[in-house]
C-alpha cells in the first residue's frame, strides 16, 4: 500500500537539493508527468502518488513517466527510479504568478478606451517550454467590492501558450467576469491584431440588460450580456500590461516601449472623456522588473526591464 501522499511528498521534497545536484543538462521526456516539456517540481509533486514500491502496479498511465527502468518492463515506480528522476530534473523556466504594470483610476466607469501598440514578446522558456504562459495588454473596467473583483470587462491583445504545447499565438480578446460563481467567466478570442497601434474599446451599452460591447479599431466585434451587469457600473477603469509568469516578457522593452495612448473612459453610460492619468495612478508590481511612466494625462509607457 502506498503511503499517504502528503507525508511522502514532504519527505521526497527534502531530497530536492540532492536531485538538483544530480540533474543532467539534457532534458528528457521521462519524468515529465504533466507533459509540459520539462521535468520540474510540478512533476515531482506527482511522484508520491505514483510510487508503487517494489511490488505494486502503476496507479495511473501517466505514472509511466517515472518508470525510468521501463525498458526492463518492471512497471513499477520505486526508489530505484528516483536517482534517474534526479538526473532528468531540469527545472521549469517559468515561475507562475501573474504580474502587472498598469494605470488604475477610480470612477463609476462604464467604458474604457485606449490605443495600444502591439509589441512582440518572448514567453518563458521559448521555444522549447510547454508551460502555460501569456503576456497581454488591455483596457477595461472592474468593479472592486470588499477587496474582490467579481465582475469586470476588458479587451486587448494577448500572446498566449497553453500547457502542453510550444505553440505561441497572438490574439485579440474580449473577456467578461460576471459574478463570483466558479463558471461566471466569458472569454472570446479573435484573430491577431497585427503589428502597429490599434484601438480597443469596451463599453456597457445597456444598463437595463447588462450588455457589453467590444470594439477593435472602431468596429464592434462582440457583445456580451449578463444579468450581473444590470444596473451596475465599475468602480475603476484600468490600462494594463499583464504576464502569467515572472519570466514572461511584459510588452515593450527599454528601446521600444509599449505605449498606451489617447486613453479614455466613460461614466454612467455617458460619453468618453480623457483618462486623467496621474503619476500616482501608475503601478508596477516590481519597479526593478517592469517599468511604467506617465507621458501625458492620456498616455503612458510600459516595458520589461529584464526581457
Amino acid at each position, binding site marked *: 500500500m502506498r503511503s499517504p501522499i502528503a507525508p511522502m511528498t514532504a519527505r521526497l521534497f527534502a531530497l530536492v537539493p540532492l536531485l538538483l545536484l544530480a540533474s543532467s543538462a539534457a532534458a528528457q521526456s521521462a519524468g515529465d508527468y504533466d507533459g509540459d516539456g520539462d521535468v520540474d517540481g510540478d512533476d515531482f509533486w506527482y511522484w508520491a502518488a505514483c510510487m508503487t514500491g517494489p511490488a505494486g502496479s502503476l496507479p495511473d498511465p501517466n505514472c509511466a513517466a517515472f518508470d525510468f527502468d521501463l525498458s526492463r518492463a518492471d512497471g513499477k515506480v520505486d526508489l530505484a527510479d528516483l536517482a534517474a528522476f534526479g538526473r532528468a530534473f531540469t527545472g521549469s523556466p517559468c515561475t507562475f504568478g501573474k504580474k502587472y504594470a498598469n494605470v*488604475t483610476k477610480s470612477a463609476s466607469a462604464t467604458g474604457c478606451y485606449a490605443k495600444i501598440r502591439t509589441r512582440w514578446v518572448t514567453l518563458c522558456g521559448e521555444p522549447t517550454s510547454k508551460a502555460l504562459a501569456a503576456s497581454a495588454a488591455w483596457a477595461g473596467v472592474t468593479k472592486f467590492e470588499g477587496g474582490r473583483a467579481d465582475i469586470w470587462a476588458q479587451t486587448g491583445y494577448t500572446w498566449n501558450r497553453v500547457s502542453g504545447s510550444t505553440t505561441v499565438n497572438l490574439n485579440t480578446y474580449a473577456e467578461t467576469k460576471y459574478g463570483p460563481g466558479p463558471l461566471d467567466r466569458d472569454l472570446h478570442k479573435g484573430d491577431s491584431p497585427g503589428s502597429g497601434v490599434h484601438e480597443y474599446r469596451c463599453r456597457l451599452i445597456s444598463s437595463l440588460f447588462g450588455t457589453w460591447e467590444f470594439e477593435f479599431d472602431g*468596429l464592434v466585434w*462582440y457583445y456580451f450580456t449578463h444579468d450581473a451587469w444590470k444596473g451596475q457600473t465599475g468602480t475603476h477603469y484600468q490600462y494594463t500590461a499583464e504576464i502569467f509568469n515572472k519570466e514572461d516578457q511584459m510588452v515593450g522593452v527599454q528601446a521600444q516601449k509599449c505605449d498606451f495612448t489617447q486613453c479614455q473612459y466613460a461614466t454612467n453610460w455617458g460619453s468618453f472623456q480623457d483618462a486623467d492619468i496621474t503619476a500616482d495612478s501608475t503601478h508596477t508590481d516590481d519597479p526593478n522588473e517592469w517599468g511604467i511612466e506617465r507621458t501625458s494625462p492620456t498616455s503612458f509607457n510600459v516595458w520589461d526591464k529584464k526581457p
Partner: protein
Amino acid sequence: MTHSRRKAVKWSRTPGMWRITLATLLCTVPARGVFGQGRTEQPPAAQTQPAKETGRQGWEIQTEQQAIAKAREIIGLPDTGPSKLSAEVTTLAEDNTPFLHDQVTGRPVWHIAIADWKLELKSAPADEHDQYPRVFDVFIDPTNGLLLKAVSRWPEGVPPIAPEPSARSAEEQMPRSGLEKYVGFPDVAPRVRLLQALEIVMKKGGGNPYLAKQIVAHYVMQTWMGGKPRAVWAITLRGIPPIEPPDPGVSVDALNHIRNIVDGETGKWLGAGTCPQPETGAPPATAEGAEGRTQP
C-alpha cells in the same frame, strides 16, 4: 486581419438600437438559478437505439459502404488514415446540439464509428503528437448525406470534467455571447473538411486539438452579431489544459474547453470562446495558490 470579424462588424453596426433590443430580448436568462446539476460521469458517446427501419426509399446514402465513404469525405480522411470504420443505421435517443437537437433525435441516422485514429496535423509543431487515441462517432443524415455531428469519445481511464451544458442551457447562453444562434444545417457539404478546420484551429490559437480529450464538431448555419446565416464548423475542444490560470474562486471547468468557429466555405477562423459554459453546482475546482487580480 480577420476578414470575417470585419464582416460581422459591418453587419452589427448599421441597425443601431433595435439590435440592442434584440440582444437583450434574447438574453433574459436566469443567470445562475438554472444551474444545479453536479459533476457527472461523461455520458456515453452516443445514446443510440436500433433504428426502426422503415425502408430506405428516398435515402441518398443506402449502404454501409456509402456511409463510410461519405464520412471519409466530410472529415477529409486520408487514404493512409484509420482503417477501422464501421457503419450502421441507428436512432439518437438524445442529442444536445443547441437549437437543432429536434432535427437530430428520434430519427434514423447513419452512425459511422472510426476507431484507432490519432490526428496528424501539419500545422502542429513537428515534435508534438495527438495525446489520445481517438474513436470518432460520425452521424450523417441518410436522406442527403450531410453531417449532423462528429464527436470523439472520452478517452478510457481519463477522469471526467464537467459535462457539456444541456441544449436548453446552451440555447440560453449563446445569444448572450455575440447574439449567436444555430439556425439550421447547411444544405450542401462543407468545402472545408473537418481535418482542414482542425488545422486552422491549431494554427490560429483557439486551443490545441492534440491536447483535447474530446472533440465535438458540428457543421451548422450560424448567425452571429445579427448577421446573415453562414455555414460554419463549430468545433469544441473539451478537456484541454486551462487556457488561463484560474483565479481564486474560478473553476478549471470554466477554462478547460473552447469552441472554435471556422467558415465552412473559406476556411477562415472566425474566433473562439468559452461559451457555452457547463452547468454545474459542484464546488469549484480551483487551483490552489493561483494569484488573484491586481488591486487598485
